[in-house]
C-alpha cells in the first residue's frame, strides 16, 4: 500500500526541482523581493533626506513615516484575516478545500498584522517620550491598539497551542470578533478627546506635499513587504496542511495494511450468512 513516491509525477517537490522556466514561482518571488528592497530604500530616502523637518517636533517627527504606514497596514492585514475567517466559516461544510485556503490566509495575514502592530506599539512610545515627556498613557487610542494587539496575539496562541477539529472554527470566530476593535482604534481620536494626534486622512491638520510623498512611498514599500511575507506564510501554511493530510493518509494506509485479511469476501461471517 505504500507507493514509491519519488517516481510519481504528481508531487510538487518533483515539479519544483524540475523547474518551470521563466515563470517559476522562485523567479517571481525573487523579482518581488528585489522590487520591495528598491521601494524600501526609496521610502527610507524620502523619509530621511527629502521630507522637510517639522517645525515643532524636529527630526523626531520622521518616526511618523514608519509609524503611520505600519498602523494602516495593521488594519489592512487584520481586514484580510477578518474576511478570510468569514469565508472559512461560510465554506467549511460545503467547500472544505476553499475553507482550508481561507484558513491559511487568515493565519498568514493575522501574523503579518501582529508584526506591523508590534512596530506601531513600539515606535509610538519612542516618539512620545521626547514629544509628550512620557512613554505611555492610557488614552483611548493607545489602549484600544494594545487591546487589538493582545486579541490577535491570543488568536496566534490559540492556533499554535490548541488542538482538535474545533480549533480553526474558534480561531475564525476570534478573528471576526477581534476585528471589531479596528474601527474603535481608528475612530478613537474622533470619539474621545485623546492625547494621540488626529488622523492623517480626514483630519483637520495640514501636511506638506513632500511629507505626503514620503508617507506614500513608505506605505507602498511596506505594503509590498507585508504582502510578500503574507504570501510566503500562506504558501507555507498550505504546504503544512498538505503534509499533514498526506501523513494522515499514509498512517491510514499503514493501519489498513496491518489489519488481518478478514474482509467481507473472505470472512467466515459472509459464508455463514
Amino acid at each position, binding site marked *: 500500500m505504500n507507493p514509491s513516491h519519488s517516481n510519481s509525477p504528481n508531487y510538487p517537490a518533483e515539479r519544483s526541482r524540475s523547474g518551470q522556466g521563466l515563470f517559476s514561482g522562485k523567479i517571481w518571488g525573487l523579482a518581488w523581493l528585489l522590487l520591495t528592497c528598491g521601494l524600501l530604500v526609496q521610502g527610507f530616502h524620502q523619509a530621511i533626506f527629502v521630507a522637510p523637518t517639522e517645525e515643532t517636533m524636529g527630526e523626531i517627527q520622521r518616526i511618523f513615516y514608519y509609524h503611520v504606514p505600519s498602523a494602516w497596514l495593521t488594519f489592512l492585514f487584520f481586514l484580510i484575516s477578518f474576511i478570510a475567517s468569514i469565508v472559512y466559516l461560510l465554506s467549511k461544510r460545503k467547500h472544505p478545500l476553499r475553507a482550508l485556503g481561507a484558513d491559511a490566509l487568515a493565519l498568514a495575514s493575522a501574523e503579518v498584522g501582529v508584526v506591523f502592530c508590534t512596530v506601531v506599539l513600539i515606535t509610538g512610545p519612542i516618539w512620545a517620550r521626547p514629544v509628550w515627556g512620557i512613554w505611555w498613557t492610557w488614552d483611548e487610542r493607545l489602549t484600544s491598539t494594545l487591546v487589538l494587539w493582545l486579541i490577535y496575539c491570543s488568536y496566534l496562541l490559540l492556533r499554535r497551542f490548541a488542538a482538535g477539529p474545533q480549533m480553526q472554527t474558534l480561531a475564525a470566530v476570534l478573528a471576526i470578533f477581534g476585528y471589531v476593535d479596528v474601527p474603535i482604534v481608528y475612530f478613537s481620536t474622533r470619539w474621545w478627546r485623546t492625547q494621540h494626534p488626529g488622523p492623517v486622512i480626514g483630519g483637520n491638520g495640514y501636511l506638506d506635499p513632500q511629507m505626503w510623498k514620503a508617507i506614500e512611498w513608505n506605505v507602498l514599500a511596506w505594503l509590498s*513587504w507585508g504582502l510578500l*511575507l503574507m504570501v510566503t506564510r500562506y504558501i507555507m501554511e498550505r504546504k503544512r496542511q498538505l503534509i499533514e493530510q498526506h501523513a494522515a493518509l499514509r498512517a491510514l494506509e499503514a493501519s489498513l495494511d496491518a489489519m488481518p485479511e478478514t474482509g467481507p469476501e473472505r470472512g467466515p461471517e459472509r459464508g455463514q450468512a
Partner: protein
Amino acid sequence: MSHRHLVIAYVVTWVIQLSYAGFLTGKWFALRKAEREFPTYEDFGE
C-alpha cells in the same frame, strides 16, 4: 535626544520585520525537510 530616538525607532522597526522574515525562513527549511519525509500531492483533489 530626538535624533537618537529616531534612530532607535527605525532600527527597532527593521529588527522586528527582519526577525519575522528570519522566523519564516527557518520555518521554510523545516517544512522542506518535512516535505522530503512526506511528499505531498499537488492538491487535495488528487
